[in-house]
């Protein structure tokens, strides 16, 4: 019997397991295929990192987040594994060829589902022995989920081609129906797979929302909050340009150190801002949902949504980035009635109009020319008629509208926000602390300043006070031993 605590100390700096981690590892080490539902910040990376370290086997991680895969690589390197690589469509052809030729040098291989569907890539991976296949964000396999990725449906066959290695399917937030769907699509019957399901509830995050009259009022509320709230914060926006603009406004009006952060930035800039945030050299990032997939900052005290997300799952994922150190934290959703149209527009952009669908069905050769047509191509290739495809997309549209409505209901609720949120994941809570639950139980908006003083801790900066003297910085940059 392996002493898991001992292995944890041997291969990581963590002192103890987070809830669910040990259970998942035990299942995997007993060679049981596993579906793990762990909340954001639940330490999913550690699971396969530790499995790889203990068994010395190769781990293939299928991840849908192409633009952020490099962050995941960095994160694994940060956690101590050095033989890590990502294969994505974003890399240059020569790079991919070189990587595939030296695949045996890597123990952890991240790959996007689209790349894995590529025959050359799959052949190269199949030549290596795989100990564990990890399917990250496994809910992307679910056709009626908001993040459906057709290439995930190929994973069932791909796994066979890899010699049916042990599998770990992971997701942060999946309803019961989604969980069943994941298993069915991967070709499992529920009794053959171990399920480790941790509660979605994060008791140390206080939930609140504020409905503002208009954008002007919302901006003012945001400035007030940011000026006074203690500790590090993330503010989510649905557009890059607004994140940039608001970062500039907040810098000017609050005296806090605020930067924008989004996927459209050059690597070095993104890295620097991420480092500054990690080192507490900046206090607040104005981000799009791209933020924070690769990094794990424990002491984020609050998450504010300037724009509402498209659904409850995304919301729970995003607020899950605060309070990872277990200390009291705060989630605030700011809303003004026009915000829903912004989401509706974003939604319209992701679901094809009938006209476009008709055009593509008439000119199917164009389906391969644009990555955005991937889902349409999937239905076309699977013999769905134009009428059937139209119906599928219309249903998808309705579903997303329903999900948005649920999100708006959360904002307007006159009951307990936590209960409403958890209901969505078929969860109930028993030991609720009304003072630290949500703004239904207490007059949070009348007393948020005292909540802040009482519960939200100030940050102690790791980065020592900024120096302006280059000589002093240089002296500190390298620790000389002589």
């Amino acid at each position: 019997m392996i002493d898991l605590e001992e292995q944890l100390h041997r291969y990581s700096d963590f002192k103890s397991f987070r809830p669910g981690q040990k259970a998942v590892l035990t299942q995997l080490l007993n060679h049981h295929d596993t579906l793990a539902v762990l909340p954001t910040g639940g330490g999913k990376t550690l699971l396969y990192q530790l499995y790889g370290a203990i068994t010395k086997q190769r781990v293939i991680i299928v991840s849908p987040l192409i633009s952020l895969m490099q962050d995941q690589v960095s994160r694994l390197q940060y956690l101590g594994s050095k033989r890590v690589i990502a294969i994505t469509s974003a890399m240059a052809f020569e790079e991919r060829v070189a990587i595939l030729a030296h695949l045996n040098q890597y123990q952890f291989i991240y790959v996007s589902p689209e790349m894995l569907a590529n025959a050359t890539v799959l052949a190269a991976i199949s030549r290596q022995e795989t100990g564990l296949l990890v399917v990250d964000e496994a809910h992307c396999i679910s056709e009626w989920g908001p993040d459906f990725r057709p290439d995930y449906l190929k994973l069932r066959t791909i796994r066979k081609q890899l010699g049916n290695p042990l599998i770990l399917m992971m997701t942060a937030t999946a309803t019961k129906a989604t969980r069943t769907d994941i298993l069915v699509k991967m070709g499992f019957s529920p009794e053959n797979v171990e399920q480790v399901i941790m509660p979605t509830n994060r008791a140390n995050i206080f939930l609140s929302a504020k409905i503002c009259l208009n954008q002007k009022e919302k901006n003012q509320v945001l400035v007030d909050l940011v000026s006074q709230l203690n500790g590090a914060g993330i503010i989510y926006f649905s557009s890059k340009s607004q994140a940039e603009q608001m970062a500039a406004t907040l810098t000017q009006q609050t005296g806090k150190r605020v930067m924008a952060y989004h996927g459209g930035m050059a690597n070095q800039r993104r890295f620097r801002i991420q480092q500054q945030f990690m080192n507490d050299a900046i206090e607040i990032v104005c981000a799009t949902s791209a933020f924070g997939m690769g990094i794990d900052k424990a002491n984020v005290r609050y998450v504010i949504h300037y724009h509402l997300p498209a659904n409850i799952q995304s919301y729970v994922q995003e607020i899950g980035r605060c309070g990872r150190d277990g200390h009291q934290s705060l989630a605030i959703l700011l809303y003004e009635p026009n915000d829903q149209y912004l989401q509706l527009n974003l939604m319209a952009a992701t679901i094809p109009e009938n006209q476009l669908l008709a055009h593509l069905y008439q000119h199917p050769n164009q389906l391969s020319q644009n990555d955005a047509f991937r889902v349409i191509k999937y239905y076309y290739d699977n013999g769905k008629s134009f009428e059937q495809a139209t119906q599928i997309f219309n249903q998808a549209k309705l579903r997303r509208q329903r999900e948005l409505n649920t999100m708006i209901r959360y904002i307007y609720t006159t009951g307990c926000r936590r209960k409403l949120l958890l209901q969505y994941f078929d969860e109930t809570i028993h030991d609720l602390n009304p003072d630290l639950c949500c703004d239904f139980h207490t007059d949070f908006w009348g007393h948020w300043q005292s909540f802040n003083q009482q519960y939200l801790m100030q940050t102690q900066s790791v980065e020592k006070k900024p120096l302006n003297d280059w000589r002093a910085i240089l002296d500190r940059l390298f620790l000389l031993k002589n």
Partner: protein
Amino acid sequence: MELSTLYILFGDLTQTRRAKALKNILAGRRTVSNLYWALEYDLLPYFGALRDFKLGDEKNALDRLAHLGLIVLTDRFSFQLTNQGRDQQVNLLKLLPPIKKLTIAAQNDVVRFSSRFIFATQIVSEYSYSNKRYYPQTIGFFDDQLIKRWFIQNKQRQLPNYFQELLDRFLTQLHDDLLAEIFIQSLTGHHFSGETEDQLSAKMGVPPTIIQLQWLMLYADLLTRVQQIPTSPLKLLLVGLARSPMANSTNKTLIMYRNTDYTPEQIASRRRIKLTTVYEHLLEAAIVLPVNQFPFSRLLAEPTKQALESHQPSIIGEWAFKEAKAAIPDLSFFEFRLFQVLDKKRKNDD
């Protein structure tokens, strides 16, 4: 980078400069026309120095500068600096290391060198603190492999001391604490994340483009210094940075032309390229190479040259092909342009 700042820096008080050509020169868009204008503006050594940066829209930049009275537009897309613009140029140049340093970035991939150096600094800084748990930068697969190999080969060579001494010497020799401060903020390391160009810009009160130029030029300077130390542990970080002054295909055409007595038509057929492409290659080589390394006399027959000389206006750069052709009906555009290039290069040599 803000194109407006670049227009001030590379604009001229007396010579009208085409905005689009100027942008293409800095961005290194290699066409005969852009190379020719670079020669005409004496900016050939800067060709492609800013190829790794987004340079923005010309029209917005011109409108802005004209509105501020810093330039006058001679037509919609050509401009000259006003006196006020020239003053502004002088002020901006004071913030930068000698502008000639930028030519190093035209000959070498300085941006790539800087990202390698910054990553190497991070690794050595963390190594000096015996810290293995940090987020490494991502600089692309090949450079990543290069840095790994470099570190394994050199880590016994007291790298922390080497970096400390190298940087101390380099920054001291700048004799400018402000530039030294700006440079050091480009680095990251143990519990130090440096600053972005806009953070520094706000702190120093200069445009972000100036910070980016300062970085580029300082790294260019550092690159040359490291290149001059044959035993430097950083040698491996310098591989593959040199940029060829000519495109590969141009070089092939030129070599074929020099080493045989083929006509351009024969070269086109042998190389299976268009005749116009052969002429473009030859013009590109004529512009880029020193006069004595290009066979001008073979391509520009003496009678044609004499005819051109007898009709040339005082400023050949402003001579339009249409006018020349009216005077010399047999003249081809290739001969006309070659004559302009030869004239300009001879004047430069004088």
